[in-house]
């Protein structure tokens, strides 16, 4: 407990609180234009989505492109609780995340044997199946979806985002995270070194799904309405692009990718037809010239603030 209070952590905490306070101040003073607030909350949602996908794809090396399915589950479950059953928001968000995590478990277990492309297609199929199930369920409004009141504020969105990132970062830095990275690097070698690959692969899926479900809950409770067609393959793909853009394997990269893509989408909102084409072209170019993304597998760290002994002990990623 004692070594938590080092310079690095205090500066990080101060940074987080400062960022929150500045924006909250602007909102309370009514200076913040609503469109900006909307974009900022969108950024928070996508940060959670990108970092959670990174947990599965980047850290553990499992190729999953069905993330929208987990998000959908979280969105619908939390919406059912808050809008139809009139429960409290926190219960809805938690329930959504937990059910999504269960789905992650369900997906993770049988697909353990699959690798690379096959796993990708299987997760894609899963995402689509989830969407079609909701499309066919009249209780949640079927294709038209249903409306619910908007209860998410900047405080909620930012707070949950910061909490999620901190939790995930801790996971990655822990022995569990190390195990996942070893699976990514060379699964067979890890297995022979005694790492329980089954356990960790499933853990990665479950955690990734949990946070995706949380993000889904935040989305549902902010945007007034949810429909199955929002949670399609294109959404999964956009999240994947954010992760790859930032650098597969880097948590900060995921955050960065989420911010860049959401801002670009907002800025280009005036030219929708061109926006999609430009995104596709940029993506292909990036894959050809810099497939490791902006940050590669490095993390943005405040290591330079640490004491000399800290620096030596700190892990270089």
């Amino acid at each position, binding site marked *: 407990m004692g070594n938590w209070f080092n310079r690095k952590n205090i500066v990080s905490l101060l940074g987080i609180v400062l960022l929150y306070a500045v924006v909250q101040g602007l909102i309370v003073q009514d200076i913040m234009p*609503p469109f*900006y607030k*909307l974009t900022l909350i*969108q950024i928070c949602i996508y940060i959670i989505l990108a970092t959670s996908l990174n947990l599965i794809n980047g850290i553990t090396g499992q190729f999953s492109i069905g993330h929208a399915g987990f998000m959908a589950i979280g969105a619908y479950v939390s919406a059912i609780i808050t809008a139809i059953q009139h429960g409290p928001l926190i219960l809805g968000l938690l329930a959504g995340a937990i059910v999504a995590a269960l789905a992650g478990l369900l997906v993770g277990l049988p697909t353990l044997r699959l690798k690379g492309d096959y796993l990708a297609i299987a997760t894609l199929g899963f995402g689509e199946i989830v969407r079609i199930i909701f*499309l066919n369920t009249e209780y949640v409004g079927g*294709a*038209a*979806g249903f409306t619910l009141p908007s209860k998410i504020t900047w405080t909620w969105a930012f707070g949950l985002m910061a909490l999620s990132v901190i939790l995930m970062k801790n996971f990655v830095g822990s022995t569990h995270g190390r195990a996942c990275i070893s699976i990514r690097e060379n699964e067979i070698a890890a297995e022979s070194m005694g790492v329980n690959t089954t356990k960790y692969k499933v853990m990665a899926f479950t955690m990734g799904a949990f946070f995706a479900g949380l993000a889904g809950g935040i989305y549902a409770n902010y945007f007034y309405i949810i429909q199955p067609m*929002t949670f399609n393959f294109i959404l999964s793909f956009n999240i994947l692009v954010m992760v790859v853009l930032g650098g597969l394997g880097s948590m900060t990269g995921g955050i960065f990718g989420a911010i860049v893509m959401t801002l670009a989408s907002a800025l280009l909102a005036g030219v*929708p037809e061109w926006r999609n084409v430009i995104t596709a072209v940029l993506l292909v170019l990036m894959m050809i010239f810099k497939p490791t993304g902006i940050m590669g597998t490095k993390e943005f760290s405040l290591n330079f603030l640490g004491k000399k002994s800290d620096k030596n002990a700190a892990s270089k990623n």
Partner: protein
Amino acid sequence: MKLFSKGFSLGMIALLSVSLVAGCGTTPKAGSSDSSTPIKVGGNLELSGSTAMFGQGAKNAIQLAFDQQNAKGGVLNRQLTLVAADNKSDAGESTSAVTKLVSQDKVIAVIGSMTSSVTLAAIPVVTDSKIPMISPSGTNTKLTMDPATNAVRPWIFRACFIDPFQGQVAANFTLTNLKAKTAAVIIDQKSDYSKGLAESFVANFKKGTGTITGTEQYVGGSDKDFRSILTNIKAQNPDMVWLPGYYQEVGLIVKQARELGMTMPFMGGDGWDDPQLYNIAGDAALNNTFYVDHVATDDPALATFVSDYKAKYNNAPNAMAALGYDAANLLIKAIDDAKSTDSEKIRTALENMKGFKGVGGEITIDPKTHNPQKSAVIISNKDGKPVFVTRVAPQ
């Protein structure tokens, strides 16, 4: 390479910060009454995605209406500008798009959207910001009436009739003119409109002692092969088939039905109305089909609109375009009546609108429901041309 990526990252961050700050500084002033500045009207429209055709047709028509008005000197001596935002046929994007229109672009009113679900998503935003919104073609009752409180939504209006009325008209026609005792129903599961219209038809048909032999569903926007569901319906041998979908699928369904040897009459709603219907189904297949619509092609007011639209855009307009045109002109008249661009005054003007002559018929807004009392027409398809059958006035 390391230097490159560092520089690149820093560059991106710098670029983003600059654009953020730049954006912050240039929020335009709220609707100024300076007579030289244009009046900005927002269009929250489906310009891409699965229902892009509706939004694009409406956008063209709204622009046409504005251009025509501007040529006459604009309204209140100011020019009209349409600020279009694409909601990508998605409800979530609709919220973003309308927020941008209302807070960034500071429009004085919003026209949109074309489909009910997407319109619903925008309602909370315009209600909070107290900006009036006119949906050209959203027919679901929930748009103007809040189902939770059964009260009218003060800031939302529409330029078309509603599904309950349309279904009733169709059911009566089916029972009386087509003399059908049994019907099968095919629903576009992805559309609020289709489901609502189907419900209304079924309820009215049953009231008239008709029986429904079966219901089938398809996924609009992607399904192209309907022979399986049609085979099921054929086995039920209904007197007619109720098909309240959009023209793309309707054309294919009717064509495939005829190929399976199904000769009974098919009928649908205003979603059938698009010139492409004939290309898709072929003239022969469409014989013995009918649909409910807003306009009759023999109405002289429509002819001018169609030729103006064709002259400007090289394409014939569809039903959505006609409704978009009416929504635009309705707004223009409201601004004129209110003699101001103040949102509250425009809202009141819209609520009390009487006898507005649009290409889609005369619009009188009922202040209690914000729905126009419009009559419907029934059109039949004969040898590749729509033929007016009868007009039904609202009760």
